[in-house]
């Protein structure tokens, strides 16, 4: 199987089976199972603290699960040796939530890094590819700047350009549009769509931006919070998710402060994550609501 050849529809690109992860006594992921097929824009959504970023870290192999299996390109990564994992990582790109650009390098050097490390291209060609990638994300003319000199949104787009530098067949993306203005959100979404439609890449996106979810998603899973912490509470196509009977899903989609995701007293079930407090008695519901955008 060559990196750019689309896999047969029957064989999933990513296959996760009964994934469980504990942090101490807390169960962050609880029996998560799903499959991602080639060409999908696969969305993992859910409220803050539901474990979606943790799930993504397991998929890229930087965290090891307590139990369960993860197969990427048909290879089991949970038991893989470091060197084999290294090889596999050359075949996917990752966009981190914070961008994670190397602060010691300029934006252009950051984008060039995977090309310098993993290809034999000469400097001139790398330069051209970098310019092209920066243009794709609307950063023409910013290549010479250090990451500390550009805005958060620009960092994110530069990081996206870096993730796409090698035209990987599989791209992971952690909150790609968080902190971007509506236009840039659309630009990033369009770029994601173009990846899957024109290049045939597969994209796994972690997000809670509902506009993005329905704009780009082809298959969606939602992780629960509270008593359903770390469990998949809904899975399906965008249409199926929109019409999902689970009130918690509907509440999340509509951004409704009252509903099944809140308990009887009307408190949000994941308020502790939202406010970073345990003593809920002190905070009225209105205070929690006003903390939401």
């Amino acid at each position: 199987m060559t990196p750019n050849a689309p896999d047969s529809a029957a064989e999933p690109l990513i296959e996760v089976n009964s994934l469980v992860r504990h942090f101490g006594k807390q169960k962050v992921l609880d029996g998560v199972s799903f499959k991602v097929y080639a060409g999908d824009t696969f969305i993992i959504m859910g409220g803050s603290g539901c474990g979606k970023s943790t799930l993504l870290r397991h998929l890229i192999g930087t965290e090891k699960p307590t139990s369960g299996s993860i197969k990427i390109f048909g290879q089991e990564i949970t038991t893989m040796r470091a060197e084999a994992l290294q090889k596999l990582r050359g075949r996917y790109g990752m966009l981190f939530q914070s961008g994670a650009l190397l602060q010691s390098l300029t934006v252009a050097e950051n984008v060039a890094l995977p090309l310098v490390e993993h290809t034999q291209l000469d400097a001139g060609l790398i330069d051209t590819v970098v310019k092209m990638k920066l243009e794709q994300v609307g950063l023409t003319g910013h290549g010479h700047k250090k990451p500390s000199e550009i805005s958060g949104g620009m960092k994110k787009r530069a990081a996206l350009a870096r993730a796409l530098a090698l035209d990987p067949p599989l791209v992971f993306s952690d909150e790609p549009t968080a902190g971007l203005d509506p236009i840039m959100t659309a630009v990033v979404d369009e770029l994601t769509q173009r990846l899957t439609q024109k290049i045939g890449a597969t994209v796994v996106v972690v997000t809670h931006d509902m506009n993005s979810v329905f704009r780009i998603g082809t298959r969606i899973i939602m992780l629960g919070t509270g008593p359903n912490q770390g469990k998949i509470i809904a899975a399906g196509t965008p249409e199926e998710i929109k019409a999902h009977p689970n009130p918690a899903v509907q509440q999340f989609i509509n951004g409704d402060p009252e509903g099944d995701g809140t308990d009887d007293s009307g408190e949000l079930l994941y308020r502790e994550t939202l406010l970073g407090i345990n003593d809920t008695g002190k905070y009225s519901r209105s205070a929690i609501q006003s903390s939401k955008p």
Partner: protein
Amino acid sequence: MIEAFRQYFALCGSLLYWLFAAPFRGKPWRIGHTFAQIVRIGVHAVPMSALTALTIGVVLAMQSAAQLAKLGATVYVPGLVSSSLIRELAPLVTAVIVIGRSGSSVTAELGTMKVSEEIEALEVMAIPPMSYLIIPRFLAMVIMMPLLTVFSIYVGLTGGWLIGHYSLNMSTAYFVSHALQYVELSDVGIGLLKSGIFGVLIVTIACSIGLNVSGGAEGVGLATTRSVVVSLLSVFIANAVLTALFFF
């Protein structure tokens, strides 16, 4: 504590692989990165180690002259300055300077990279942080510590000579010949060996603590303090052990 030791020895094991095995598996040392670190860790430390060594040399000469003058034995001042500098003080003082300005910065830099997901990003890009970040720093430190020590010895002796020449009226030839009379080449070798060992200790401790930072900016601050304290203690203890082994 046990966890810290485990992390430290894991780093050392990995370091051995990347130093000696990886170059034969098509993953050579990164010479360009190493030179950049040599400049940051070593060259930029030159002015500070020079000034420190100069003052140490001057103070050594003044103190010993004050005591030996009572016995009419100021003739031993050059020998005392040279042997204490070469055997003990130059390696030790250089190590303290390097811990303060380079070890701490290695920990802070790696720690910041850790908390801002940069190290994870390197891993995911299939660029091993050991090869990209740690080996260049290690090589730079192990190369530059002995060189800085040689430089410190030279500047320290110059400090001693200043006192000998201008205060004790010794001629330059007299000072140099007496200074060399009490040290052998092996002393210089052992001094440099000491500084090499200090270099290994400083850089491995700084990297191990830096790579295992957690807890954001506060974590980086705590880790940097811990790195300096642990490095200082390790260097002093190692110095005592090495002196006992070679000179006692």
